[in-house]
């Protein structure tokens, strides 16, 4: 027994002494929380990193470093020269890409993030409308430190479905899948705050178009099933009085039905939305069942029309960000799928949207 204990002690002391070179002292580490990338006109990268400060003696809440380099890892070496901290990537939560880079394609700059085992595949990816570095360098007085602010903003909004939760794993998965194109949220510096400004649509790894912030819920309905969320529907027609319905506690279910006859593909997208209505500005009486049914039909029609225009936008830019291709692929068989160039075929596919809204309650008063 004594021998065994001795062996175990020997084993641990051997391990501990052997790892001396790899020891990390928490106070000496600069744990990058958010990093941003912009492409400069000369092809160089402008990289910014935001590092929360653990040192109680430091007055600043974070350290922000910006360097210009030809690639990301070299950028890190250059950054390291500017700080007393040992920079580590294990705690990165967000990677922001400037629009300049997104338009050229971001995969080659992402490769290092997925290759580095210290970086989580759950790292969130976003596009910044404008300069990503400028946004990250800026302090927003009314809000927590910028990196944390962005992280919480993205987390909260994705839980309300206004933007998709895009991680490096989900982005790359959609990039490599031939039946869907990747998307990311777009954020924008609004002066005193940061705003979610829509969804970026990618053709392979290149940004090509965006869905405006007001329409992101329509995109969420079309993209898949979800629970939780709210939407304000503008029901006013031209010349009419203004009419708005605020739908909350959304539970949306999507069913895709693909038919394939004589080389013709037709996709029917059936969406059923259960919701509560908590605010309505208009002439209908929502506590009256007939009026409520009428309202349900009007909201359904309006949302269906909006969904149709969104599909038209996707077709115009030849991006299947909804993943309709995956459903088509599974329906038509491998040989037919491989024969087809989905990107070219997608604009010609007939997509029929059918949205049905059911108001399950209308608040506490009649």
């Amino acid at each position, binding site marked *: 027994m004594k021998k065994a204990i001795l062996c175990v002690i*020997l084993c641990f002391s*051997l391990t501990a002494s052997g790892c001396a070179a790899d020891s990390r002292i928490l106070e000496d580490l600069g744990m990058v929380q958010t990093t941003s990338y912009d492409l400069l006109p000369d092809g160089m990268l402008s990289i910014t990193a935001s590092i929360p400060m653990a040192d109680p003696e430091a007055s600043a809440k974070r350290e922000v470093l910006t360097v210009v380099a030809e690639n990301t890892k070299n950028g890190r070496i250059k950054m390291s020269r500017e700080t007393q901290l040992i920079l580590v990537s294990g705690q990165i939560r967000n990677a922001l890409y400037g629009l300049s880079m997104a338009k050229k394609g971001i995969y080659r700059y992402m490769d290092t993030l997925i290759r580095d085992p210290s970086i*989580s595949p759950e790292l969130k990816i976003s596009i910044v409308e404008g300069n990503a570095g400028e946004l990250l360098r800026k302090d927003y007085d009314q809000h927590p430190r910028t990196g944390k602010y962005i992280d919480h903003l993205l987390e909260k909004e994705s839980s309300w479905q206004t933007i998709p939760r895009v991680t490096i794993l989900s982005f790359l*998965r959609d990039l*490599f*899948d031939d039946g869907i194109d990747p998307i990311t949220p777009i954020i924008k510096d609004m002066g005193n705050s940061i705003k979610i400004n829509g969804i970026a649509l990618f053709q392979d790894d290149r940004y090509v178009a965006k869905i405006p912030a007001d329409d992101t819920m329509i995109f969420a309905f079309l993209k898949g099933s979800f629970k939780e969320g709210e939407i304000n529907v503008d029901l006013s027609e031209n010349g009419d009085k203004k009419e708005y319905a605020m739908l909350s506690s959304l539970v949306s279910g999507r069913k895709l039905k693909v038919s394939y006859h004589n080389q013709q593909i037709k996709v029917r997208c059936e969406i059923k939305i259960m919701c509560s209505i908590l605010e309505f500005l208009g002439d209908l009486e929502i506590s009256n069942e007939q009026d409520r049914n009428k309202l349900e039909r009007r909201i359904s029609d309006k949302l269906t029309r909006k969904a149709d225009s969104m599909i038209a936008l996707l077709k115009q830019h030849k991006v299947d960000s909804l993943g309709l291709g995956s459903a088509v692929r*599974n329906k038509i068989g*491998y040989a037919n799928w491989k024969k087809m160039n989905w990107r070219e075929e997608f604009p010609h596919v007939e997509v029929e949207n059918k949205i049905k809204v059911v108001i399950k309650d209308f608040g506490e008063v009649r």
Partner: protein
Amino acid sequence: MTKLKEKLSFFHVMILTYMIQTGVVVFSITHLEALHFGTNGWLMALFTSLVVLVNLMLIAIVHRMSNGRSIFEILEKSIPKFILFPIYLGLAALWSMIGCLVAKEYVLIFQMYAFPTTSPMVFKVAIDILAFLLVIKGVYNISKASTVFFFSTIWMNLLVFKALDDIKLERLTTFLFKEGGDMFTGFLNIYIAYIGYELSLLLFPYVNKKTKLMKAVMYGHLIRTFFYLMLGIVSYGIAGHNLLKKMLFPLLDLLAYIKLPFIERVENLFYGFFLFTTLITLVMYYWAAGESTLRIFPKLKSSVHYFVIILCSLIVSTVPVALDQVLRVLYLLGCAQIVIAFLLPVILILLLLIQRRKVVKHG
């Protein structure tokens, strides 16, 4: 040879089989399935498992015919020792190297996450000391330890439920084995993920009829099959076959779903739990190597055998330094082990048939 008074129980053998089969391939099996078989490659875990069951049937026949005699006794009854001893040495070398390199692969993967510049041999020696302390206790105690290790790791399989929301069945596609690569190499790679069950050939003297050895081994193997299939469906459902082809160790990326709000990458700590399953794999291979050399040098104490085996394999394992090299060598050794897993029971059945005929003749 250490004679045990107590025999292995059904439950212990079942758990032990599962634990030996759970090595380092578990980290990369879905990558291998996607790389070699493409769409729905996870189904290969099922097909390969059926081939393993055929192999287990052969071993079951040997077990039934042997009447509890060890395979070495059966071999030595018909084949002269001067032929057998080099074979025993070869088997011992193969088994100890498999055990040793499994541990080395574990260490090299571990070092991608932590202590990247420390010499891998520091960790390797530490693991080998633990393995030595366990292997000298004999197979009965190893099986008891493996039961404890089993319960400290099996819960991790339930973590897949954390990822349920992200699983989309349409990513599995409706196509079977499209966009894959070399399917034969793929089959061998997946078969290697199952090896370890064949060590049940050496358990004959340590069990009795109550153990129901082969049933226990089969159940252990079926548990492993079930979890490989579950892992396959989850990995394909989350990542899709194209991304899986790119990810070398998809299981480690799936662990990223374990998240704490205040710290990232906490899942890397969970990697440490896999040391338990790896440890049982290497201990059992060292034990098998020791069983083999004990026939050649029966007078030497078993602990001396294990010490020499572990030391020799440790020295040889310093040769491959890169993860890629280790993977390549392990693949070759794994292939050799597959051949032995089929060949040995066939030879034993033939010998037992000859021995039975001789008894009948003389009788």
